[in-house]
């Protein structure tokens, strides 16, 4: 049985994590990942001003102040960007550091000139402390979470449009600036609500980490939103549990839990993960080696007089390490593309000959395609596929074939690796 307090705190942090993940997905896609960071830092003076003017620790007043200076900070960023020669990145840094500096100055001032409520614990806002969360805080977080979820459900199509192609959305007649503002508003409110638990310095990480981790696993926005929300909830809960057990601030522990998720995603995610990509890269390299080998054997060897090719001749034709050449020879022999004639020479089998012809044709057509339609080259990230007929429309392939018959096939082209 979990104690009541722990249950409250856990509910709060996981709800917060889920909301941050949800909203953070849009922040990430809109390339506003660091705006949240600036916003959170810029909220500190507002928190302190709220306390200084009200003389007591009223959460709504302080969070109101935080929202005010946070949004003012964002306003200054866009003002600097639009009206001065200060660039985007410097503007973010300037606002972040100066507002945060002012906030720290206020904080220290309050601590040395106490008025009203004791200012003790005010500095918890910097690194976050979830332990003090009470039921009303969780209700507030819950309200924000539900509002955010509803907004996303209602405006899913619009948000998706703005996130991926704001210019297109504008041209299509969507109120893109308003939608953008709405997303920004959701981000701001989430950041501010997360402040007490996650802390000024690390709140932004709660927005970014689940979304970045989720991005590795999927290409679909819906799945990404779901994953990011789940990741957020998981790291919120994990971070809280570890922090409660180990006596360390909650904010950093949540972030480290998120870091672990990102690391796992980066290593093991299918397709985008490092492991999957290393395997895919190796596979592609081996396939290209194999194709090169087939082409190299296909060209007759003048020194040996016949269709068989010696190892030294192959090594001279293929500019690759001898070890790799042996490897691909073995692999090709296993696959039945070629046959060992004697200890040192190979020749193609019948299937090998037809495969070599297919490779030659595909390469020739791709080369023609690149010269005929250079503007479309970027559409294909794997130009070496032998499945050219599946990738390109048939009429284009036909056109290319016609062109290739017109230009006499030259022999160097065939032999070139």
């Amino acid at each position, binding site marked *: 049985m979990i104690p009541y307090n722990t249950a409250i705190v856990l509910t709060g942090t996981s709800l917060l994590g889920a909301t941050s993940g949800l909203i953070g997905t849009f922040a990430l896609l809109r390339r506003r*990942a660091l705006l949240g960071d600036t916003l959170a830092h810029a909220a500190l003076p507002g928190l302190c001003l709220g306390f200084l003017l009200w003389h007591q620790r009223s959460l709504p007043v302080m969070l109101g102040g935080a929202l005010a200076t946070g949004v003012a900070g964002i306003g200054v960023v866009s003002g600097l960007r639009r009206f001065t020669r200060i*660039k985007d990145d410097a503007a*973010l*840094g*300037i606002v972040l550091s100066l507002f945060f500096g002012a906030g*720290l100055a206020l904080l220290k001032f309050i601590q040395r000139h106490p008025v009203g409520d004791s200012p003790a614990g005010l500095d918890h806002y910097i690194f976050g402390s979830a332990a003090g969360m009470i039921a009303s805080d969780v209700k507030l977080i819950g309200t924000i979470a539900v509002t955010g979820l509803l907004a996303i459900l209602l405006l899913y199509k619009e948000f998706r449009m703005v996130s991926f192609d704001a210019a297109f959305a504008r041209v299509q007649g969507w109120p893109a600036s308003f939608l953008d503002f709405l997303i920004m508003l959701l981000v701001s409110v989430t950041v501010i609500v997360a402040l007490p638990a996650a802390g000024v310095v690390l709140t932004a990480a709660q927005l*970014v980490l689940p979304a970045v981790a989720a991005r590795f696993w999927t290409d679909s926005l819906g799945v990404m939103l779901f994953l990011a929300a789940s990741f957020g909830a998981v790291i919120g809960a994990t971070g809280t549990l570890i922090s409660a057990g180990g006596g360390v601030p909650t904010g*950093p522990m949540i972030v480290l839990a*998120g870091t672990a998720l990102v690391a796992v995603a980066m290593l093991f995610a299918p397709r985008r993960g490092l492991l999957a990509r290393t395997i895919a890269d190796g596979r592609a390299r081996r396939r290209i080696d194999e194709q090169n080998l087939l082409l190299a054997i296909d060209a007759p060897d003048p020194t040996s007089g016949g269709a068989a090719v010696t190892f030294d001749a192959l090594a001279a034709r293929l500019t690759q390490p001898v070890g790799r050449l042996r490897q691909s020879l073995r692999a090709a022999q296993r696959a039945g593309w070629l046959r060992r004639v004697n200890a040192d020479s190979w020749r193609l089998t019948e299937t090998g000959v037809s495969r070599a012809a297919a490779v030659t044709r595909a390469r020739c057509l791709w080369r023609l395609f690149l010269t005929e339609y250079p503007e479309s080259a970027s559409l294909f990230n794997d130009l070496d596929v032998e499945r050219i007929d599946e990738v390109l429309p048939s009429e284009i392939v036909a056109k290319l074939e016609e062109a290739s018959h017109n230009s006499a096939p030259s022999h160097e082209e065939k032999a070139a690796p």
Partner: protein
Amino acid sequence: MKGIDLFSDGGQALWTISIAAAASLPCALLGCYLLLRRMSLLGDALSHAVLPGVVIGFWISGSTSSGWIFAAAVVVGLLTAVLIQLLHSVGGVTEDASLGVVFTSMFALGVVMLVKVGPRVDLDVDCVLYGLIESVWLDTQPMLGYEVPRALMSVVGVLMLSLAFIGLFWKELKLVSFDPRLATSMGYPATLVHYLLMGMVALAVVAGFYAVGSVLVIAMLIVPAATGHLLSDRLVGTMGWAAATAIASSILGYFGDLRFETGMAPMMAVVAGAGFTLALLLAPRHGLGSRAFHRFRLALRIVAEDVVAALYRTSETDSAELGLAWRSCLAAGGGGLLARLAVHVLFWRGEIGWVADRRVQLTATGRERAESLVRAHRLWEAYLGENFDLPLDHLHEPAERVEHYLGPALQEQLASELRRADLDPHGKVIPGSKLS
């Protein structure tokens, strides 16, 4: 802070300010390169991310000013730069997000380490936020017969190193900052210079840690450089202003803290911010204030010129001696406050004068200016009429805009290119044409 017999309060002020200045100068100078390369946020990231390095350094050496801290921080700083690059290029995460992931993770790691091992080495979260500036000057060591704070020696060491780095690699840094592609194609090792710079920034960040703490270092990295960037268009000028801002915030930060008790580090950030705001408003070329002033002067000149041109055109009609009614004068200037002001300026400069009955006429000097203006206007109309296939009623409007920007030299060139430089397409005389 009282009752320290080694130094009077003056000594404390001197040492503290020197440490703060020597610590923030490298940040300010290297920050200029970050700003130029639009990598200010990488500086932000480094300033957060060196925290684990600082904690490890403290943990190994147990002292606040040892080489271990610098060494560990440089290693961690370079690691951060590499990780950000990796996550971006290998992981395919956008640059800002990869920055956000790496530096928050490193900082979180640092905070957790701090809480875990901090108490053993007398380092706490407050040090991270406010720096150590208020205490480091107490830890001294004899040097040339004086008791010099240890921290001063290490930050001066970093300052010297940064100056040497900037001096030695001046050309390379400049080239890489302004045009990395050109630098690469000319055979300069842009990547090497980049990582050297990152290493130096990590060193400077640790030095800045003494003065302003780990988080506010970002203020010293970006704000002085941005101030310099507003005040100067040259690298040397930018760096000079940045250095001046850093030194000024050290001095004023110390006294501001004495006055308001806000902590020296936040006060330094606030002073730097005030300096930046001043530069933002008052910088001669890029300041908002001076730009607004220049725009206002231009607007005033254009309105005044519209008024004198209108007066000139009246003087060409039969009712020349009557001048133009005051009210029509204002209308010619577009009405409103600006027109009123412009007319007053014209009176004050003696370019227009009263005829009678609230009517206004050009004086001799005013006439000269008006002639040049109307000449520009009609020359442009003639030029458009001769060279472009435009209907007659489309000539006036562009000329109305261009007339304000055609000086005597351009007017002569236009006149020499025209077949008829004495009459405009509407058949009006182009003034001044008989003189030339």
